[in-house]
């Protein structure tokens, strides 16, 4: 039983090129290794307004993670205690431009995103990956080290941009680089189901 799941699991090493990104299909289970950068509401706005070069190297062909973690200080080091995904749709107005501006290959979050983002994923060869909401310790345990943090004083812990080195961070491909969205399919079906049940 477990072997079957294992066979379908794909390993993603970041940074990732466009060819490998386009090979990912809806429903693929992936384990991500490399650097990911947390970014939520304040950070998305800041990235668009400032077009900062500080984080550019981490994001090129890399991943952005919609997440506001719990972090604690241990001397000079930061320890990640909990780091599940936050709702992605709030970033819909920024996401397509950010994918283009920073050359992002993976957007990681929960709940899926809208049509503009789907279009950008297709145009610029990127994917949206769903992490499991609330599974915060599983994700925190995949963080090997905190490489850097930006905008901590201005935005506070949840909204800062944390640069995380992760190993085998589990996620599921739910929007691919060919314009397909599992979220769109499920929503349509749920509305149909509601009408049929009435």
């Amino acid at each position, binding site marked *: 039983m477990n072997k079957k799941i294992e066979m379908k699991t794909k390993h993603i090493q970041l940074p990732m090129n466009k060819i490998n990104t386009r090979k990912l299909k809806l429903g693929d289970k992936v384990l991500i290794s490399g650097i990911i950068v947390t970014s939520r509401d304040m950070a998305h706005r800041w990235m668009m307004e400032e077009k900062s070069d500080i984080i550019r190297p981490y994001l090129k062909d890399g991943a952005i993670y919609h997440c506001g973690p*719990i972090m604690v200080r241990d001397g000079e080091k930061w320890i990640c205690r909990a780091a599940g995904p936050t709702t992605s749709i709030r970033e819909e107005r920024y996401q397509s431009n950010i994918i283009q501006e920073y050359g992002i290959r993976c957007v990681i979050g929960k709940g899926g995103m809208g049509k503009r983002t789907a279009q950008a994923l297709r145009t610029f060869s990127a994917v949206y990956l769903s992490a499991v909401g609330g599974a915060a310790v599983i994700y925190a345990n995949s963080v090997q080290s905190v490489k850097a943090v930006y905008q901590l004083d201005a935005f506070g812990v949840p909204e800062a941009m944390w640069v995380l080195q992760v190993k085998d961070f589990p996620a599921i491909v739910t929007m691919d680089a060919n314009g397909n969205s599992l979220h769109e399919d499920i929503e349509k079906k749920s509305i149909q189901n509601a009408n049929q049940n009435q």
Partner: protein
Amino acid sequence: MNYTLHEQEFTQQVADLIQQTACILPEDIERALVSARALEASDNVAYSVLDTILKNVDVARKQQQPLCQDTGLPVFYVHYPCGISTRIITRCIQDAVVQATADGFLRPNAVNPLTNKNSGNNLGIMIPCFHFMEWDKPEIQVACMLKGGGSENMSIQYSLPDAKLSAGRDLNGVAVCVIDAVIKAQGNGCAPGIIGVGIGGDRVTGMQSAKKQLFRLLEDENEYPELDKLEKSLLAQLNKLEIGPMGLGGKTTVLGVKIGMVHRIPASYFVSVAYMCWACRREVMSYKL
């Protein structure tokens, strides 16, 4: 009666309560998640999502780490006897919140909407939030609820009649609202959710009633037979939507529906829906005086 509250001891017990609430999922919720996983074939996405959730619940409990990073806006429901100062209780619980935040059990979540500054210690205007009720017992009962923002954002209030939904002022109308709320939420509230519903009241007491339902155990029965029937039929209907865990499809969209009611005024008929994520963190402690 004259009571003496040992503030330091009480504060420490509340800090322990917060840690437990943040790190340990209530047993009834975990049982429901295990049952939901058993309904799915082991090679589909829903199974994989529920399996990840259950592994996380286990590891959070063992490592004593917050099972979800979003510890929400901490809410405390406090019962206290006559003669105890609610101002002192408030201060003790605030101190416990600051301690739990420093210890990494709560995420600093209090943000000033004018400056966007995070206070860093979870104290702010109306944060944490308190509900006080006086009772006869010689003890203080503190119930803590941690509800993430993703699910709170999916909570919604309807005013009936609603022409768009064809929802009238009866239990059928209530059912239409609840189904609409769950469809609107899709996976964004961290499905499978628990749906608290408040019928009646004003816009504040209606939602309060809805949220209070979330303290009920999943297996309990509603004290009103007509609401109990509605809870069970809605649970079945909502799970036919196939929104599934995290909105990625599957047989379980909600773990429970809990409906309460408060009196309304003739002009208003509110249906308040409090969407709770699967990470339904609620815990109660008693402090003997």
